[in-house]
């Protein structure tokens, strides 16, 4: 072998040509951005659907111009029918939970930053990685197709409870091909997520740079790692559940459909199935899914807060152990979604106990954040504002969880807006705040351009105040008995609540509109934002050692060596009050704060 011909082998060769660079790329960074773009499309679609629902709830007789073109049957003359309201509800939930809350904090940022933060050149299996994105994209297309078939999207909610979801077209609009598309889409999504989770786990175990021990990984890397372990188990159960559902719908089996079921005057040709079986399988996935959305956001928020405070957290290790116990316990609590299902009351009690237990690690994490913030000199930029906003949402949404964990209270509250307010705050908005924080924090690294801080802060305050205006009243509505999933309310006892509903709708329209500030900032900064330095926030972890944006092989032909714990802040280093993970210099002056 001649000297000149010696080339370091890479996981894959540098991509050539537009198609291989930006579309079918093997590069984890491009794949991360693709996930982000997909989540962005999904979140704006989902938000638009929520606008339609909120508008219809308070102005049920005002036509929405143009909506009849989306569905002639569902919105004749622009007026939403009760069934089409449920279709919108189903699609809103499915898009948000699967394509936004799973994709953005976990798949998008995890793909982009996990390999860099552990000092790897790419994911362990770049081809699987590309496949997992395109599989997810296919799932998205299949789901969206439901809007454009005559039948329309399914009306069974994002949880697709059987037998409604299993019996087919007799049970209502969207339950023939719409529901098929839903089930196929989610099955495809499961396959993509399983591939992704497998890749994350193998990468974290095997591709860590020299010196990058497990306990030297940044907290967000830990969060993605733990999340991928959760996702691996959760989607491995949802996939069989979807297969059984598809078989019930198309092959005439009876897994979920009971005997003697008469729907629209038709005796269903099934017998002996168990509708509860679907709920068990679904929630065995569904509850861990909450942590798939929230743990990455919690990890990102910790990562950002440490950097903004310029000092380590009280205990990063305890946060990591708490995340692990949350991941473990998340598999023992699924029954708390089923207190009303007719399940044995004794098992309700059995599920209530671990549900209350899981609040302990969650509380520990929150207390560590708040305790570390005490007396810290926090840098107030958009990223840290959204990180603080995350804590606020997480606590507010979490506190209502204490109520819902008690079967006796849940029996009253479960069918009401109280639950809707709870999960929107603790799962939906909190995770999105984590995504916003991550975007403002890492945008410079990902694109080479910084985002506009003023617009970022305006976006934060409008979103923060707006979400409280939307979701706090939900709790009140729930307490007074406002039933969820109804497309309009009979005026008798709901009449006095209508002004509050109007307030929520106006808040939702305004808060949604504020997201266009973010979208503008994103697009504008991508092209016109000031150039991002390699390390704009004086960070210590490995993503700040590479150029902004990083080259296709991340670290070039060098291989980083790690000497420190991830967060050496508040020390006297040669570059300032921090020492980077790949710098061999030793800390002097001790940890401040």
């Amino acid at each position, binding site marked *: 072998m001649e000297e000149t011909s010696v*080339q370091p082998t890479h996981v894959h060769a540098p991509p050539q040509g537009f198609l291989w660079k930006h579309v079918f790329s093997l590069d984890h960074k491009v794949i991360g951005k693709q996930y982000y773009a997909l989540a962005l499309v999904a979140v704006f679609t989902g938000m638009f659907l929520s606008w339609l629902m909120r508008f219809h709830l308070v102005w049920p007789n005002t036509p929405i111009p143009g909506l009849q073109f989306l569905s002639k049957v569902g919105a004749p003359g622009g007026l939403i029918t009760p069934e089409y309201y449920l279709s919108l509800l189903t699609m809103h939930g499915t898009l948000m939970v699967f394509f936004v809350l799973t994709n953005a904090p976990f798949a998008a940022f995890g793909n982009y930053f996990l390999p860099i933060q552990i000092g790897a050149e790419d994911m362990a299996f770049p081809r699987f990685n590309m496949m997992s994105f395109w599989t997810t994209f296919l799932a998205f297309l299949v789901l969206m197709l439901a809007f454009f078939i005559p039948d329309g999207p399914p009306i069974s909610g994002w949880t697709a409870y059987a037998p409604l979801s299993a019996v087919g077209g007799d049970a209502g609009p969207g339950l023939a091909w719409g529901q098929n598309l839903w089930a196929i889409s989610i099955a495809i999504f499961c396959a993509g997520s399983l591939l992704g989770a497998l890749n994350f*786990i*193998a990468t974290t175990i095997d591709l860590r740079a020299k010196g990058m021990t497990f306990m030297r990984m940044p907290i967000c890397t830990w969060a993605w790692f733990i999340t991928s372990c959760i996702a691996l188990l959760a989607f*491995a*159960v949802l996939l069989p559940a979807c297969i059984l559902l598809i078989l019930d719908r198309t092959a005439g089996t009876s*897994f979920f459909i009971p005997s003697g079921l008469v729907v629209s005057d038709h005796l269903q040709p099934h017998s002996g199935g168990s509708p509860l079986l679907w709920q*068990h399988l679904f929630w065995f996935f569904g509850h861990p899914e909450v942590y798939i959305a929230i743990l990455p956001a919690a990890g990102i928020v910790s990562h950002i807060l440490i950097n903004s405070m310029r000092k380590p957290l009280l205990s990063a290790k305890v946060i990591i152990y708490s995340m692990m116990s949350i991941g473990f316990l998340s598999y023992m609590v699924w029954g708390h979604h089923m207190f009303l299902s007719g399940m044995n009351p004794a098992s309700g009690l059995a599920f209530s106990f671990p549900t209350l237990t899981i609040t302990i690690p969650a509380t520990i994490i929150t207390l560590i954040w708040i305790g570390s913030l005490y007396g810290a000199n926090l840098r107030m930029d958009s990223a840290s504002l959204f990180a603080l906003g995350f804590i606020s949402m997480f606590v507010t949404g979490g506190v209502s969880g204490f109520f819902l964990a008690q079967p006796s209270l849940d029996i009253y509250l479960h069918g009401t807006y109280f639950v809707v307010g709870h999960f929107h705050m603790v799962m939906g908005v909190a995770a999105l705040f984590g995504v916003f924080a991550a975007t403002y924090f890492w945008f410079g690294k990902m694109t080479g351009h910084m985002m506009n801080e003023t617009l970022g802060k305006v976006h934060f305050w409008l979103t923060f105040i707006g979400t409280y205006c939307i979701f706090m009243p939900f709790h009140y509505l729930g307490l007074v008995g406002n039933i969820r999933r109804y497309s309009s309310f009979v005026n008798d006892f709901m009449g006095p609540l209508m002004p509050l509903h109007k307030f929520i709708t106006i808040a939702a329209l305004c808060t949604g509109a504020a997201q266009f500030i973010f979208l503008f900032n994103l697009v504008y900064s991508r092209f016109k934002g000031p150039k991002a330095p390699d390390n704009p926030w004086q960070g210590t972890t490995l993503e700040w050692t590479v150029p902004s944006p990083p080259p296709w092989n991340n670290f070039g032909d060098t291989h980083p060596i790690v000497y420190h714990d991830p967060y050496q802040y508040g020390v006297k280093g040669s570059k300032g009050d921090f020492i980077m993970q790949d710098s061999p210099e030793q800390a002097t002056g001790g940890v401040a704060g």
Partner: protein
Amino acid sequence: MSTTHPSVVGEPPALISTPVAALARANARASSAAEASHSGVWVAIFAITMSFVAFTSALFVREGASGDWTHLTLPTILYWNTLTLFAASATFELSRHAIFVGREFRSASARSGSGWLLLTLALGLLFVAGQFAAWRQLSSQGLYLATSPNSSFFYVLTVAHALHVLGGMLALGWLVRQRLGGQPLRRRSFESTSIYWHFMAVLWLYLLIVLRTKL
């Protein structure tokens, strides 16, 4: 290891060439990516196990849900299929022996072991064909996917397993291609395929017990 067989890359070959640093890096990367295939296959096994646990618990719940649970007689060919799959595991081990253990003695043959690998592939195919025969036999008795909950689970479990076996055969086919083409065989890729292949046999044994006792 000072001598390396040209067709076998076990550990990073100690090539004496400069720049040494670049090569060491390259080798470190190549070997860690191969390590990952090892943990990747264990993670995949974990996920597949979880899926079959889900199917099994669905079976238990469905059995208790109503009184329509009847029993069906398993086609005898299933036991022959079991033997076939275990024989395929054994031939895979024989190929390992031919490739890695005896290599100092058989260094002339860079394609050693490909015969055993081909036999493994053929046995895998025979297994899937045997499962197909079992499905045909059941359907000739009037037992289709939707006939009864038992037959539903029979088809779901066996088809899901057969699809996973076909996945393993893809990996096997890739190994055979490498071997017949005389290309270097990475030990870790071989090991990963073998772990998965043996897991298929173990999983089948588990399923057979479930089918035998529950259906």
